């Protein structure tokens, strides 16, 4: 891809990035940060490409280290975000079932 197209994509991505998070409630700041943190773990794709082209064992070793680090970022990031959000979600369920049980009682 030539430089001009990359620049175009980058500038558009900046505006999308600004736009999608502009109205987020402060309650979600932490999960949003954690989710964005997981997304940049996609550097894993870059680490895989570099490791896949490595001919020298030393280069391969460094590239594999990058793969391990990037995987930790990607997998760990999504898992911890999911756990955080699970807690928000789990709060509503028991209450709803509680209310339903109350109606059954009537």
């Amino acid at each position, binding site marked *: 891809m030539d430089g001009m197209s990359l620049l175009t994509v980058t500038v558009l991505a900046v505006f999308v990035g600004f736009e*999608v998070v502009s109205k987020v409630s402060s309650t979600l*700041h932490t999960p*949003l940060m954690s989710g964005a*943190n997981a997304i940049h773990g996609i550097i894993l794709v*870059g680490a895989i490409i570099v490791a896949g082209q490595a001919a020298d064992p030393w280069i391969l070793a460094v590239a594999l280290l*990058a793969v391990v680090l990037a995987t930790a970022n990607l997998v760990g990031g999504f898992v911890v975000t999911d*756990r955080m959000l699970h807690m928000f979600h789990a709060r509503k369920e028991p209450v709803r079932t509680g209310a339903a049980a109350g109606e059954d009682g009537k």
Partner: protein
Amino acid sequence: MSLLDPVWTSLLYLAAAVFFILALRGLSSPRTARRGNLIGAFGALLAVVTVFLSARLENIPWIIGAIAVGTAVAAPVARRVKMTQMPQLVALFNGVGGGAAALVALLELSHNADPWVRLAIVFTLLVGAVSFAGSGVTFAKLQELMTTRPVVFPGLPVVMAVVLLAAVGTAVAVVLTGSLPLAVLLMVLGLAAGALLVLPVGGADVPIVISLLNAFTGLAVAASGVVLGNVLLVVAGTLVGASGTILTRAMAAAMGRSVAGILFGAFKGGSTAGSTAVSERPVRSSSAEDVAVLLGYAQRVIIVPGYGLAVAQGQHTAAELAQALEDRGIDVDFAIHPVAGRMPGHMNVLLAEANVPYESLKEMGEINSEFRTADVALVVGANDVVNPAAKTSSGSPIYGMPILEVSDARQVIFLKRSMRPGFAGIENELLYEPQTSLLFGDAKDSLAKVLGAVKAL
């Protein structure tokens, strides 16, 4: 393997990029947040499968082994970490991502002679290394492996300036020569700069720094995408860089701070250090039993949890106290300031984990008008977020920060460790008001004592 032709590869990467945008979009609203995160994870999986199917890769068993190792280390930690320790885990994951980006750039140096690509390489090296070291120091601060106070020493600004100048000089040399040893030196300088950047930041400001470093890693990943000619990395990295910047500013605004002030405050003489001056003015100190009586015979109690509660890990005791009061027929709500806890939104997570019903957690805008009807406002480990100086004293560092209007309640009880002001380093006039009483001690211990006394009523 090369099962996919370039068109399909591009289309699948485009799909992954769209999933990432939808993920961020979903994460911005409580109803869709969890689905948003899963969409992001799916996008990542799609991208990784695509790279295996499209690029001509050697060493595939090794790569799969490395992915297995990374997963085996990160997934259990992410699953088991205590929610109070979650901020430092996010810092850690952010740091290793930055480190990975820097290593990728380092290895790409020998393949690229184009000066523009080399510019992207030195950018990735430097920013990735800054993010790695900075995140490492924030991790150490939050995990309390080192002091959470700002670390400053005489000449710090000079050292920082020297490191940055050396980094710029080395970066220019790397672009011109493509020398690998110089690139390694640049990484080392980046590590030093990252550590120096975060060391002077005070404990309470660390979350904002995590968010900033998160944006940095995003930019490093975007630059590595330029190096590899991979559009997905460019888009995903730029998205995180841009949204992370907005998020950092939103967090800082909610705390009444400026990002520059946090980063350079300590350099300029330590505004984040906070004052340790203790006023001699009289306050009404009270016992756990007195507090229990005030709470136990109230009709409506609003609990204001803060940083001190998170530090003392007293959220479960706070939830038990709320339950004990509810059992006595008292109406109890939690008033959550946007920046309560160790990170914005962190308090909601902590209280949700302690089984506080979702509808008892009230956001600031919702609860502020209700303090007027409350008999008791119980402030646990919070100070600046209830300080009326934010409204009344225009010279105050927190002037303009939205606060919880606890002074409208008939009685205000502060559970505080000491009379020391909060991290903004300003006195709280509310502590000296006639309707205020104070119970000194660790937030969790005090809550446990009050809980015992309430049950004994």
